[in-house]
């Protein structure tokens, strides 16, 4: 046995040999970014359930790219070139999941659930089972705030086109303003799958930053007098109304925009299981076990798309900036309509609940509650803010449905 030759072979095949290549340096940078994301998730608790998975997926995929052969190595966990062939109309493997299953790595196979829209829809099933639409039923005007808070989606879409992104890419970037992770992932996988990594990371990071971003805008756009408004208690909603609601919304919204069917259908099915009172086992499963399982797969497979050679470019920087713009303008949209409702109602509506129209449930509603209580300790805005908050979920699904209808 030639020891020297064996050592040479081991050295050339080991991942460390790839450090010196150009893509190897990009992968190294991505590994450092994954460490930073892990720090944000674990230490700073920024959406840890997803961010830790995304960061570790990012780490795995970039480490595996140091293997000899890089991305196309048989040992690589994720193969972007397989997905390029999957999306290429001229390729013999166009839309061939079989090709992915036969040749893909672990993360390719998990990513099929993202690409097919399975994971975001299943997450919506769990979200529906966890959401109480009672505050929205008690005060249907909340829907206007949910609609207003989609302003950032369309402004960022316009901004992205101005910056040179294609319509499909701009739509995927704009939806970050909806502050709804599963919807952003769902739309991006359909319109601009190559941007999934930066869009998902931007969406979840900004959602985690809501308590830091929104209060400044809330204080800037509202007066002390407006923030002090104490709202009267909402009416009690009957059980029958809560049962009929998901059925009505599913029929109405899906008929309006058929492309929203997977998201709205799952959201409302989950809610019906919660409210109907005879499927407690199912409601419990989708809220807990299923939600956790899907979160595991979703996080790691979204992280897998952050391959250094494709992630580190100016487009990513543009997405991060446009995403923040989208998010801020969505908050502004909700607050402005909140102020309008304050005027029209003769000072009975606290405009702070408008910012909860972005659909990050329940964090945005909690921020409204905290800011309201800072202005007036007797203020309890949480249940009032939950109305626009859940309306925002429906609003962002409609916005995504519209963009999908236009660009698909």
């Amino acid at each position, binding site marked *: 046995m030639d020891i020297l030759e064996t050592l040479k072979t081991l050295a050339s095949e080991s991942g460390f040999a790839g450090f010196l290549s150009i893509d190897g340096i990009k992968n190294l940078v991505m590994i450092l970014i994954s460490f930073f994301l892990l720090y944000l998730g674990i230490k700073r608790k920024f959406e840890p359930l997803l961010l830790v998975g995304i960061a570790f997926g990012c780490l795995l995929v970039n480490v595996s790219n140091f293997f000899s052969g890089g991305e196309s190595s048989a040992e690589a966990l994720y193969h972007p070139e397989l997905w390029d062939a999957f999306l290429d109309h001229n390729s013999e493997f166009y839309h061939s999941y079989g090709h992915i299953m036969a040749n893909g790595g672990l993360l390719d196979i998990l990513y099929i659930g993202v690409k097919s829209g399975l994971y975001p829809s299943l997450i919506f099933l769990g979200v529906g089972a966890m959401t109480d639409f009672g505050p929205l039923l008690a005060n*249907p005007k909340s*829907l*206007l705030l949910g*609609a207003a808070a989609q302003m950032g989606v369309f*402004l960022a879409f316009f901004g992205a086109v101005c910056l040179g992104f*294609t319509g499909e890419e701009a739509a995927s970037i704009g939806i970050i303003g909806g502050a709804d992770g599963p919807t952003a992932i769902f739309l991006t996988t359909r319109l601009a799958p190559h941007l999934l990594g930066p869009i998902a990371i931007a969406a979840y990071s900004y959602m985690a930053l809501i308590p830091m971003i929104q209060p400044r805008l809330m204080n800037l756009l509202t007066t002390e007098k407006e923030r002090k408004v104490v709202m009267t208690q909402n009416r009690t909603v*009957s059980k*029958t109304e809560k049962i009929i609601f998901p059925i*009505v919304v599913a029929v109405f919204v899906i008929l309006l925009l058929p492309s929203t069917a997977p998201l709205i259908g799952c959201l409302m099915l989950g809610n019906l299981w919660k409210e109907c009172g005879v499927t407690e086992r199912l409601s419990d499963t989708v809220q807990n076990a299923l939600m956790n399982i899907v979160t595991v797969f979703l996080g790691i497979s979204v992280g897998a798309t952050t391959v250094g050679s494709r992630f580190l470019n100016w487009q990513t920087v543009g997405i991060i900036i446009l995403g923040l713009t989208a998010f801020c303008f969505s908050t502004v949209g909700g607050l402005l309509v909140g102020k309008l409702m304050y005027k029209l109602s003769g000072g009975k509506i606290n405009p702070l609940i408008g910012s909860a129209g972005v659909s990050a449930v329940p964090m945005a509603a909690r921020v409204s509650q905290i800011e309201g209580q800072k202005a007036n300790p007797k203020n309890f805005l949480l249940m009032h803010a939950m109305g626009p908050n859940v309306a925002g979920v429906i609003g962002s699904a409609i916005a995504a449905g519209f963009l999908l209808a236009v660009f698909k």
Partner: protein
Amino acid sequence: MNIGDAAITAVFGYAVVFAGLLMLMAVLYCMGAFFKSKEAKSADEKSKNPVQTETKPEPAIEKPVAKGSAGRIKLYDVPDKEAAMIMAIVADTMKKPINELHFISIKEVK
């Protein structure tokens, strides 16, 4: 896509979201009005025709007292849960085990 088309798409898209949610709002108002009127009707009927059923008071069945119990407690306008909490607080404040205390009655002072 050119900038003009993008502007039109953005405005139209925002309008579609508003229109969709406005229509949904109208549907929810109709639903709410229907249920409110139904509730009002049943409340009216109840007040017009109070249910008059003569029921003989059931003879109180004395349940056996649990082993180790310090007897029964009389509650006046106090739910069981609150009574249990009050008893726990009293025991804690007096630093005495609850099974060594005998509560005779708890009454809400209005």
